[in-house]
């Protein structure tokens, strides 16, 4: 007799639990206001990334097209994947001394794992993270970027 009652209580509890489950999905079905989907390409205009978002490594330039990188190579040493290459050049400064400046700061985006060591360890805070995240290209070689903008020079007093 005991098992007989358990048979029915099983059915009862089973059906009850199923109805509770259905109430959850049913509730969401009738509340489309809670939809969380982001319509990505359409919302591009008002898509606001967080300021710290690590989209890519960039070299910070001011309005005079000047940056703070002196080509010391610390970022290159710190990069675990070898995604930074520094090509420096020597020029003769105004005071007649030969000094090292950055010629090309090459950044292989395709190899970068965004660990942030280059940005963190840069002694002159020349590097930063940009918010751009749409990096898809058809050719891998396009992922190799030169970070210092053409014609840019170093801010005085940084070296």
């Amino acid at each position, binding site marked *: 007799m005991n098992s007989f009652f358990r048979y029915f209580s099983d059915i009862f509890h089973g059906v009850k639990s199923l109805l509770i489950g259905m109430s959850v*999905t*049913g509730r*969401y*079905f009738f509340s*489309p206001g*809670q*939809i*969380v989907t982001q*319509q990505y390409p359409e919302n591009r205009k008002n898509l606001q990334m967080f300021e710290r978002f690590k989209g890519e490594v960039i070299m910070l330039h001011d309005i005079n097209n000047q940056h703070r990188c002196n080509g010391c190579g610390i970022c290159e040493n710190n990069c675990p994947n070898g995604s930074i290459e520094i090509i420096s050049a020597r020029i003769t400064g105004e005071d007649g001394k030969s000094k090292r400046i950055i010629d090309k700061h090459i950044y292989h985006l395709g190899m970068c794992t965004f660990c942030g060591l280059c940005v963190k360890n840069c002694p002159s805070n020349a590097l930063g993270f940009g918010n751009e995240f749409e990096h898809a290209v058809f050719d891998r070689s396009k992922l190799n970027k030169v970070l210092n903008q053409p014609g840019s020079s170093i801010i005085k007093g940084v070296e």
Partner: protein
Amino acid sequence: MTFNIYDFTSFNRWIDEGLNSIMSPTWALITEMAIIGIVFLLFYAIVGLFLVYAERKVCAFMQNRVGPNRVGPYGIFQTIADFIKLLMKELVYIKDSDKLLFNIAPFIVIIASFMALSAVPFAKGLHAIDFDIGILYVIAVSSLGVVGILLAGWSSNNKYSLIGAMRSGAQIVSYELSVGLSLLTIIVLAGTMQFSEIVEMQRNGWFIFKGHIPAIIAFIVFLIASTAETNRGPFDLAEAESELTAGFHTEYSGIKFAFFFLAEYMNMFLVASIAATVFWGGWMPFHVSGWAGFNTIMDYIPPLVWYFGKTAFIIWLMMLFKWTFPRLRIDQLLTLEWKYLLPINLVNILFMAFLVLMHWHF
């Protein structure tokens, strides 16, 4: 109380007589058949495509998503785009597979659902064939689909498919019983198996109200069993994707896969429409005895709207099942059938018979 503005019988007769007047009876018959064939073909395709779209939207809303929204407004052409894509896909053949059975399987699945569809009454006078053994016919024909699934699984020469097919065989064979017995409960009340008569008998109240408790139990059992019979979640063991990748149709590509997919949705439509017809009065409007004004207003709503509304609601229920519950295991599936549904069903039939005997139904 008769209300015949939506009666399609005269419309049918008009076509029939019109055709007979301009051509010989043989040709008239052939033309009629061609018309019916084309109409059903279109109907089948449209309902299938719509149901796939509806399922995507429904499940998306249940999951806090938007669902398809790229092709056309609100993504309504998504399934058409998918269909075209699948049509343009290559049919891949697997070596060592049984090619004949492999090709026959989608035929069987589609034909079974197609033939079962022929007996469904959409509105008064709007049905292809009105059998006097309608329910028996539908049960018999729709269960043919399992042969297709078994063949598909067996002929693929794929282990997942084979296990899926075996599961599906055991499952459908078991749930066949409950589908039959739950419909029998209503047959006891109705005393007929002809769909048109069954619908007609619900003019003054749907069977689910007339038969009250046993009818409601039978309806729930039918809903569960038919969900299982259409291989839908939580009973989708045959294609249990987390276990058997895609189950019996793992090896089917392109349009052949699409046919299995289509057949699943058509079977869902079919069982929903049978449930609507047998339990919820089919195209009969909702009537409350005594409320003459209310009943008249209800009568103005076309029977097709009633019919599709009820069907859509039951389909929605089945989608709610699928998108809420986890999948059962094969032994639990069979336990549910043999230890719960079947005994309940048997007792329920007796209960209904007793009700009929004592005239306790409405």
